[in-house]
């Protein structure tokens, strides 16, 4: 079901443990997750067009929000030498018993953007530092079970 982004959430645990120890970052208003898979060109003599095979998926992305001095998690994350645990939830009300989410170990970068015309904003970049967990694939059937997409 299509959902509103107002129920989104970004959780972070600097220890990398994740799960219940992950805490929602404050004043975040957007995130973007890229799941682009590298495509390797394997075109050969005689091919009528370029031919590719998939390589590894690159999990990375960005998040944005307002600078909030009550939560320095994003700034502190940039100093970590071991990856933290990042969980991206498109809608906290979507899914039982836990919402559908994308999660795993990640490193973070941060930027602060301050403009005299508006509220200071914070942006962050992340990149995977281990295997990530994705929501179950498929479509939700009327009985609540998840069917493989054909």
């Amino acid at each position: 079901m299509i959902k509103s982004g107002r129920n989104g959430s970004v959780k972070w645990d600097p220890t990398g443990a994740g799960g219940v120890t992950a805490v929602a970052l404050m004043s975040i208003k957007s995130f973007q997750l890229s799941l682009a898979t590298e495509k390797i060109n394997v075109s050969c003599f005689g091919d009528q067009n370029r031919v590719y095979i998939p390589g590894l998926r690159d999990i990375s992305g960005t998040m944005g929000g307002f600078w909030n001095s009550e939560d320095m998690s994003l700034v502190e994350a940039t100093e970590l030498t071991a990856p933290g645990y990042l969980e991206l939830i498109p809608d906290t009300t979507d899914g039982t018993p836990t919402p559908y989410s994308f999660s795993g170990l990640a490193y973070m970068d941060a930027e602060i953007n301050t403009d005299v015309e508006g509220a200071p904003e914070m942006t962050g970049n992340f990149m995977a530092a281990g295997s990530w967990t994705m929501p179950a694939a498929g479509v939700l059937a009327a009985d609540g079970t998840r069917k493989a997409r054909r």
Partner: protein
Amino acid sequence: MLPDSGEIDNALIDALNADAELRALAPDGVYFGAAPPGRENFVIVSLVEGLSLAQMGAPTARRAAETCQYIVKAVMLNGADGDAREAGARIDALLEDQTIPIDGYTCLSIARTDRIRASEPDAVEPSTVWKHRGGYYRITAAPGGTP
């Protein structure tokens, strides 16, 4: 529970009303939207735009801040141009880079974004001119008490 956005309007009017110098320059009062009939030297406050800035969070904590653009201007019929000018300058002194107490909010900033100076012939008596002096002011306020 979310605070009432109207408290930002009220706080602005209260701040203007509380100043004796502005009251002396515009003795007919400070009004939101329109002044009652018969007033000749007054201050008008109008909300031009009230933007809510959203953030992710609990259902009652998704409004990160509000950015409200107001027209705040002295409107004078019989006063000389100098009176309107002084009133406009007093409005600017009271608001520019100041913060005001707002119930349920923390006032983050107040800044003028544009200036107003206009002369307007009276609709009924064209030989009479209304003077307008003031500006567009942007108030940014975050829900929650004073930090």
